[in-house]
């Protein structure tokens, strides 16, 4: 069974934006800094004016790995895990489970787009090649 995040004041918008089909990222409303993982305070200016905005849900693979080891019972392998640099949120990367692609085809520089997997109250972002 997939482990799920605990929803908190910091992160609920990130984990539930998928219900509306959008990837939500925290931004500082004072200095515009993009904040990830989301926090209640802007680490740049200490503003408490943190708000979530939708971003395009596209990005570029900064790095990746293909996991071959089954870490839990019934975990299907292999699968690719990328670190994706988000469009529209400078400096922000997300850990990206890659779906709908041959794991061995994932490459640094590849363009990706987000989709969502709903489990309970979480809309879990998953990524696939943009083309």
């Amino acid at each position, binding site marked *: 069974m*997939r*482990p799920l995040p*605990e929803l908190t004041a910091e992160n609920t918008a990130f984990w539930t934006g998928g219900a509306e089909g959008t990837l939500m990222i925290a931004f500082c409303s004072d200095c515009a800094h993009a904040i990830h*993982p989301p926090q209640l305070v802007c680490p740049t200016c200490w503003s408490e004016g943190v708000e979530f905005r939708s971003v395009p849900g596209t990005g570029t693979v900064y790095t*990746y790995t293909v*996991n*071959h080891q089954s*870490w*839990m019972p019934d975990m299907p392998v292999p699968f690719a895990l990328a670190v994706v640099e988000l469009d529209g949120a400078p400096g922000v*990367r997300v850990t990206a489970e890659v779906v709908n692609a041959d794991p061995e085809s994932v490459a640094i520089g590849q363009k990706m787009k987000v989709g969502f997997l709903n489990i309970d109250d979480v809309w879990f972002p998953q990524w696939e090649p943009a083309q």
Partner: protein
Amino acid sequence: MTLAAAITGVGMSDIGRKTNRPAMLHLAEAARRALDCAGLSRDDIDGISTYPGKADNSPGMSPLGTGEVRGALGLKTRWHSAVPDGPSQMAPIQVAAMAVATGQARHILCFRALTESSSQTATRRASIPGAGRARLGGWYSYLVPAHAMSASNWAGWMAQRYFHEFGMTREHLGLVATGQRAFAQQNPSAVMRTPLTMEEYLGARMISSPLGLFDCDVPIDGACVVIVSAADAAKDCARSPLSIEAMGAALGSQETWDQRSDLTTMGAHDSAADMWKRTDLKPADVDVLGLYDGFSIFVPLWLEAMGFCGHGEAKDFIAEGNIGPGGRFPVNTGGGQLSGGRLHGFGLLHEVCTQLWGQAGARQVDGASVGACGMGGGFIAGSMLLRRD
């Protein structure tokens, strides 16, 4: 710039896989050996320090806290501490150094105990954070639900990016793994002592690309104790004190594995740079190194972090034979964690100290008097320079 603190004794239990021996018995054995090494008695110990404290965030990760160890060993202490959030597994040694230097205690027993080999089961594997929990919090919660569950995944990201930028190949990492195995063959305490060829290394199954089975360290059961003493008290011990010449704990990036702006560097780079600011010694003065090798890729990154070569140069530095047996800068001469077993950095420091005391047997580095140790991977990092006068 030496701190008024020294390492005066080290001890390691008989480590192994699936020992099914309680952690406390490993710990007591390591403590007895460390006291013998230092020429101290139980009643000389007046402080205790550990990482991370009793914790069960993954199976067998840290079965003992300071309270249980104080109780079991009958210690009466003036100072005690457990540090889960400090500069790596080295944190308890760094805070002990500061404690003795400020007069809080004279001789501090620093320990690390693990039963990761005996504790893991099919559903709760070693070093899989949050396994079996209903919901996850903190930085894990952005990685583990994506099935990025293992540090091998996170280290795999770093290795892949490093390969991409600098042209490193699996053969370079294979030199780390086979070189450390060659050292392990000269260390009766190492858990993996059969020869490892490059062919076997390359042929082993992939874990998380580009890291294969022999790029990953070995979960074990065992304990290690390092005794940190005040400089004036250290003079009374059995061996030449190993002065803590400098240490570093700096961290310039977020505490998670995917956000550092350059993932071909680690927290190691911050902590090591800070360490060198506190000493007149240079990398060229170092005789023996203990560099964290939870995964083989950490070794080249630590070499660069510590300034033994430039950024992107570690693959050539390794290929030139600098770090293996007979090299100018021998790394993890006991076999490291890749072949010796994962004592979470303490084993690497134990080996550096053993070398500086000239007790390393067949693998002894002639005349070793300055040692460098770096513990941790990713954002977790502590650096230390030791000197035998």
